[in-house]
């Protein structure tokens, strides 16, 4: 069904945009590195692929005049969400370009800002690319060519947005959000099982460290109890 397909593409784009936003936050800070720039490149390329296919599908559907009114309303909602997502992506790409140019990594003119973020961001990039883990090794001057490509891609995305607006005309005021204010609170309460599931997933991720800590603690506790018993027996 066209609707499910479009919804899936939109969800994918949404996820990739959120991960890209999260990665761009650290550009220029202490976690900035050539690897981060490569992760940014892969994430935004994936986002652009998704955007192009979603754009094609949605445009094809919305230009079809023989569409029922309620279906059209549904697709218009998806369209508005999609164009908003694309605007966010373009804004983040522009900021990445600006920050990447201001904090170059190849010839360190400026020291990076020590922000306290030190860890690797490969988990976020892996989530964006829907893979389990990501291992990248970028060369020493990756960001030079990357900035030029980024500039071109920013222009491409801008053109895509312009083309979209030309082809399909969806007035924003006709679209009404389905969810009321504060809907996210209800959903977190009602999605109790899903949050438990996500906790378990996360627990699975850091299991080794937590298991080790639990074992050590148990051992120390046992030793303390044994000593107390010995002291009690002796005295």
């Amino acid at each position: 069904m066209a609707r499910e397909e479009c919804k899936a593409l939109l969800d994918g784009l949404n996820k990739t945009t959120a991960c890209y936003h999260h990665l761009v936050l650290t550009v220029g800070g202490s976690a900035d590195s050539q690897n981060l720039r490569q992760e940014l490149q892969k994430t935004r390329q994936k986002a652009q692929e998704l955007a192009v296919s979603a754009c094609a599908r949605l445009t094809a559907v919305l230009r079809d005049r023989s569409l029922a009114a309620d279906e059209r309303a549904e697709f218009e909602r998806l369209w508005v969400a999609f164009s908003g997502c694309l605007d966010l992506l373009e804004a983040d790409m522009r900021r990445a370009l600006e920050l990447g140019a201001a904090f170059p990594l190849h010839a360190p003119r400026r020291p990076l800002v020590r922000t306290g973020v030190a860890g690797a961001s490969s988990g976020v990039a892996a989530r964006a690319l829907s893979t389990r883990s990501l291992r990248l090794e970028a060369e020493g001057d990756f960001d030079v060519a990357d900035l030029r490509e980024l500039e071109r891609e920013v222009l491409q995305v801008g053109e895509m947005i312009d083309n979209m607006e030309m082809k399909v005309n969806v007035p924003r005021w006709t679209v009404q959000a389905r969810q009321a204010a504060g809907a996210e609170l209800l959903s977190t309460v009602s999605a109790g099982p899903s949050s438990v599931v996500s906790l378990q997933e996360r627990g699975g991720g850091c299991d080794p460290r937590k298991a080790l800590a639990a074992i050590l603690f148990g051992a120390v506790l046992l030793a303390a109890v044994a000593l107390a018993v010995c002291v009690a027996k002796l005295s």
Partner: protein
Amino acid sequence: MAAGPAPPPGRPRAQMPHLRKMERVVVSMQDPDQGVKMRSQRLLVTVIPHAVTGSDVVQWLAQKFCVSEEEALHLGTVLVQHGYIYPLRDPRSLMLRPDETPYRFQTPYFWTSTLWPAAELDYAIYLAKKNIRKRGTLVDYEKDCYDQLHKKINHAWDLVLMQAREQLRAAKQRRKGDRLVIACQEQTYWLVNRPPTKSADFYKREIEYFRKALGRTRVKSSVCLEAYLSFCGQRGPHDPLVSGCLPSNPWISDNDAYWVMNAPTVAAPTKLRVERWGFSFRELLEDPMGRAHFMDFLGKEFSGENLSFWEACEELRYGTQAQVPTLVDAVYEQFLAPGAARWVNIDSRTMEQTLERLRQPHRYVLDDAQLHIYMLMKKDSYPRFLKSDMYKGLLAEAGIPLETKRRVFPFTWRPRHSSPSPALLPTPVEPTAACGPGGGDGVA
């Protein structure tokens, strides 16, 4: 439609320069050898590096800029208030304390200059994330903003919630320490860039601003482009860069005859200068020689008091504050009093208003009268001056300076023509002549 709205009125991008200066200070603080000393922040289990104490920051600023501690403290507070450094223990109080309170640097993404202006969509996403994380405990102004945004960008609300959830899930992929730091950074940004409280005054100012904007005069581009072309055509021969300057360009030939000849007060002004007096009345008045000749002309016509009055008004406007009362009295005595020696002819309404305002003298009391006299001179005396024999005589007398002659001996040669205009294209060199030396250079 766009992720960010247009910049709000009344806050032009002239704000940027001081942000750039602050950013340079922050970046110089990051120097590993000469920057601020970094410590680690120890929470229960996690250790987060790159914390600084308030006293370290104040000392570093005092040392780097050689200022007193008080000034360094003020500078540090300005940095905190603009969000470049944020406190770790009490995030809502944006001030620098010169003691052991820990601070940390803001990431460049959340600097005010990068994320300018603060977008509604981003704020909505942030509030939704906070709602999800804190299960609905938002501060009052945040709750109001949330409701307002829900009404304002209702069409994008699905996107807001989708993005909020996904951003939270993406953040979970990081270590706990990094997650905390990023959350603090975002919170600081939105504390610094809170939407302003919109009181009745704010709306009054907005209405005033837009009313003025509507009333601005607009000129069609066809009209103003024609005016621009005629201006360029008229002034072209007078511009030393476009048409060269005679006798020679002092910067090239080291001969400052050009400057000597065009000094403000010189006995014989050049022809170009005299022609310029005919372009507009303002040119005539701005040139001291032109003004002197105009004064002579008016003296012959027995209307010299107009120009004297105008000059006195200029002196009042641009003079010192202490002189204002005495000058105003002098002007009144000489030009405006009923039986004055050099009484100027101003229309009755302006005269009445001026005499009223002279009771409380300040710099600009005579503005209306000055403008009246200026327009009178411009419409009446100035055209007559241009048609007068005196002006025609000046034009005929004024000479065009000769170009400097070429000296006989080669080592004292100066450039023959006036400096080549950069607007002209260079003449093409013959290919053979170019290849010869070029080939020779290549071989060598």
